[in-house]
């Protein structure tokens, strides 16, 4: 079923474009052009986080951290392998994608862990980055409850994702 979602959406989009006399070819050229500059702006973050991840893992500190957090998280049904991703997601979008790629390579793309990780990174946002950027033009800087509420709800979403991946 889900195999059809994206291709069908794309097909509908192209049909609508043709109906509205939008130049499909020009759209593709524009998109490909934008992707270059997008990757250029994301690359430094990905590089930094990959260096960080690999050092952290090679030194054995990652295993230690995962061991410490495994117990409390297991009560929520969140596998310990997701721990690092959970902590990175609110901080860095490029970093989360990098870590997701790493998890996919380690555990296999269709494993429970990798599907879980995909859901977690697809269903969450860079909480700290967003609150900083959105307030960049404002005088008001006191965030009140915005960040704790966002983090708590992200945890809620993560718990739900891990649960849903067990049977979906």
């Amino acid at each position, binding site marked *: 079923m889900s195999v059809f979602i994206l291709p069908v959406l794309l097909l509908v989009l192209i049909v609508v474009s043709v109906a*509205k006399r939008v130049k499909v070819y020009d759209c593709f050229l524009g998109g490909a052009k934008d992707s270059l500059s997008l990757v250029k702006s994301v690359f430094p973050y*990905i590089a930094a986080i990959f260096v960080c991840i*690999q*050092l952290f893992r090679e030194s054995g500190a990652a295993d230690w951290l995962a061991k410490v957090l495994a117990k409390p998280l297991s009560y929520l049904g969140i596998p310990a392998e997701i721990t690092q991703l959970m902590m990175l997601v609110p901080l860095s979008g490029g970093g989360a994608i990098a870590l997701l790629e790493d998890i996919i390579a380690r555990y296999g*793309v269709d494993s429970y862990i990798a599907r879980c990780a*995909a859901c977690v990174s*697809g269903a969450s946002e860079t909480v700290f980055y967003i609150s900083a950027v959105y307030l960049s033009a404002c005088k008001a800087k006191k965030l009140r409850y915005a960040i704790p*509420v966002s983090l708590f709800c992200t945890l809620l979403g993560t718990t739900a994702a891990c649960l849903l991946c067990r049977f979906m």
Partner: protein
Amino acid sequence: MNILFTALILISIAVMLAVSPAQVFPTMISGVKSAIELSVKLLAIYAVWLSALKMMQATGLDKKLSKLLRPVIKRLFKGDSDEAYSNISVNLSANMLGMGGVATPAGIKAMSLMQDGSEKITQNMALLIVINATSVQLVPATVIALRATAGSSDAASIFLPTLIATSISTLSGILICKTLSVKNDSPNRKTKTLSHNIGNVKSDFGKYILKMRRGK
């Protein structure tokens, strides 16, 4: 992020000096190597996805979505100007479609339109941050594409669980913000500590769960 990055690298290198000093530089370089491999993959993914987004913009689908959202937004963000409403609807609809480039400027504009001149952000501003920070994206295109390039048998199978998970986080975010702002509106309770707020969040969540159970 600066502090975190420095701390992590410092700890890792210190530990590695004790265990395997020869591995420090090769590890770092192989890290960047994986980053380049991922960037090439992302370049391909973005090229396809961004062109689809271009079509959405050209056909005006994004504007249609923001019009659909408008009444809901008016109700959620009561008491702000029409200009703020239209910026919020552009922001949220663009984020739903995964167009961060369009969403962010609109979000920044909306925020500056909603501020009341004080140092604290208003309740509606907090609400907009929470909605955005709990992710409203409908199709996690990058994630699905990454799974597809890794050879998944059904890359889009995460579509539904992701959508449900992100709906849960966003809806509970809205709910908590709304209950908090009702409490904050009552007089004599203007100064609140963080722990107080977290306590409220917890009790609100408990009530919410109870409601859900009763509903079932």
